[in-house]
């Protein structure tokens, strides 16, 4: 029997790596280690359908139960990896057992960043990252419950929407001057803020949290402005930290993420890392980044599997992200920069518009609001490095793909 390939972590990145290895023809031993119990599941629905939906309490499984057995993927669930011994080429589990590896893939993901303020450990303070977090939060969504949400990023905004939909009150504290400022431009932020306000969400911008008050559980929060807001639940949505400790302890290069190359290989050629936990240089823009999205998890999983099997690399999909708030879908393709030239395509008043981000004349990123046609077309234009006519592109009556100014040069 050959020494196994071992995948540590069973989120999108870990499960997809195992799947891709099998799909691409690997027939040796394959072990998938999951710190959590139960079947590996989808994470995006945790803050969307699972939270906002009346019925479904559980996120969908990434693969059905039989899948792993049918494909010869041995799953070890509810077991933490405590160390990677690179010289012995084995990993150690919490129960003291060891598993040798031929190749190791670290898909340890990220964890929610927590608040470092007095009262942060009180019951009623909640992050949203795992299935267990989802269950806890869902149980708190009862009419009349007062929510304070720290952070107006995707998670905070999605939770606020779910809270008011359930009859709770929701106040969002955000230290920046607008929502989702890290991922989108002002037009889009304002559009979503208006939507939330119309549904009863309150915002406090330029405001951070000083301390959380309460004796046995959360009773209120005190903000940096000195204001006290009564609260039964405090949801902390202030970003994530990469789970790089195993890699760091094993001496792999880490720098706010496990550093990997274009094949998802770490500084040890026998160890790969995939998904949220990684830092890599974006091939399109040449900048070092971490990308917290399903697309990146799947692309790196594919790269790692191909490289391990000696196959040619595939062309990766353009990074993309999405959020749904009050039934309105925002989809982003590419990674914007605050220096990009911003072109608004269509009118927000129509409830259907897009914002284009041009860099040196080419389309680098776009946001679409209920405009999936623009999203699909834009993703291809970004991949092609297409230059757009900014005036034509601003007109939603003109198909986005036809606003290219470099069509002939490319196709001839």
């Amino acid at each position, binding site marked *: 029997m050959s020494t196994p390939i071992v995948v540590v972590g069973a989120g999108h990145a870990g499960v997809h790596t195992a799947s891709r290895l*099998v*799909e691409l023809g690997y027939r040796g031993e394959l072990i998938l280690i999951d710190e959590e119990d139960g079947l590996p599941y989808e994470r995006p629905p945790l803050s969307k359908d699972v939270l906002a939906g009346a019925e479904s309490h559980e996120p969908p499984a990434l693969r*059905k139960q039989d*899948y792993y057995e049918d494909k010869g993927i041995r799953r070890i669930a509810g077991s933490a990896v405590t160390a990677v011994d690179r010289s012995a080429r084995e990993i150690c589990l919490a129960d003291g057992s060891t598993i040798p590896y031929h190749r190791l893939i670290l898909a340890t993901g990220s964890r929610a960043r927590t608040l470092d303020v007095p009262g942060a450990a009180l019951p009623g303070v909640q992050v949203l990252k795992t299935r267990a977090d989802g269950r806890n939060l869902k149980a708190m969504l009862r009419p009349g419950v007062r929510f304070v949400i720290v952070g107006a990023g995707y998670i905070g905004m999605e939770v606020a929407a779910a809270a008011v939909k359930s009859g709770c009150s929701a106040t969002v504290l955000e230290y920046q001057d607008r929502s989702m400022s890290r991922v989108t431009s002002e037009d889009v932020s304002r559009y979503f803020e208006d939507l939330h306000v119309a549904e009863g969400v309150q915002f406090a911008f330029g405001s951070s949290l000083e301390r959380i008050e309460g004796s046995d559980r959360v009773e209120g929060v005190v903000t940096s402005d000195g204001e006290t807001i009564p609260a039964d639940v405090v949801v902390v949505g202030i970003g994530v930290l990469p789970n790089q400790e195993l890699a760091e302890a094993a001496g792999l290069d880490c720098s706010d993420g496990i550093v990997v190359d274009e094949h998802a290989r770490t500084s040890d050629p026998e160890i790969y890392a995939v998904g949220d936990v990684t830092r890599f240089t974006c091939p399109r823009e040449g900048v070092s980044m971490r990308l917290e999205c*399903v697309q990146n998890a799947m692309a790196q999983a594919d790269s790692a599997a191909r490289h391990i099997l000696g196959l040619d690399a595939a062309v990766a*999909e353009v990074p*993309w992200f999405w959020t749904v708030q009050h039934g309105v879908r925002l989809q982003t393709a590419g990674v914007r920069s605050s220096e990009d030239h911003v072109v608004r395509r269509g009118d927000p008043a129509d409830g259907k518009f897009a914002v284009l981000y041009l860099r040196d004349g080419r389309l680098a990123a776009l946001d679409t609001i209920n405009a*999936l046609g623009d999203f*699909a*077309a834009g993703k291809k234009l970004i991949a092609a490095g297409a230059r757009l006519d900014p005036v034509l592109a601003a007109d939603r009556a003109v198909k986005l793909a036809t606003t290219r100014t470099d069509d002939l040069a490319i196709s001839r």
Partner: protein
Amino acid sequence: MSNNITVIDRAGSPSQVEWEPEQTLMEALRDNDFPLLASCGGTASCATCHVYLEPQVVSGLGERSEDEIELLEEAEGFDAETSRLSCQVAHAQSLDGITVTLAPEE
């Protein structure tokens, strides 16, 4: 009861696949190792699970959502009569025996 369907891959080769009742068509294809990226997990947010079904099957499935149509229209090889996002096709007994053809990769 499972459906038995014929899947024609991008090289034109047919194979028989079981489509289980709790799966969408996308999930059945993905779990049987067909190279569908299905990167949005089945929420009609991308077009990476695009397939062709027979025209009479498509017309029997009812209206496509506005989102699905917008995505499909921009997809490579879109065909108004036969294109569907497989994540939006739920299992139904009446779909036993159908033929599914994978659309070209984006």
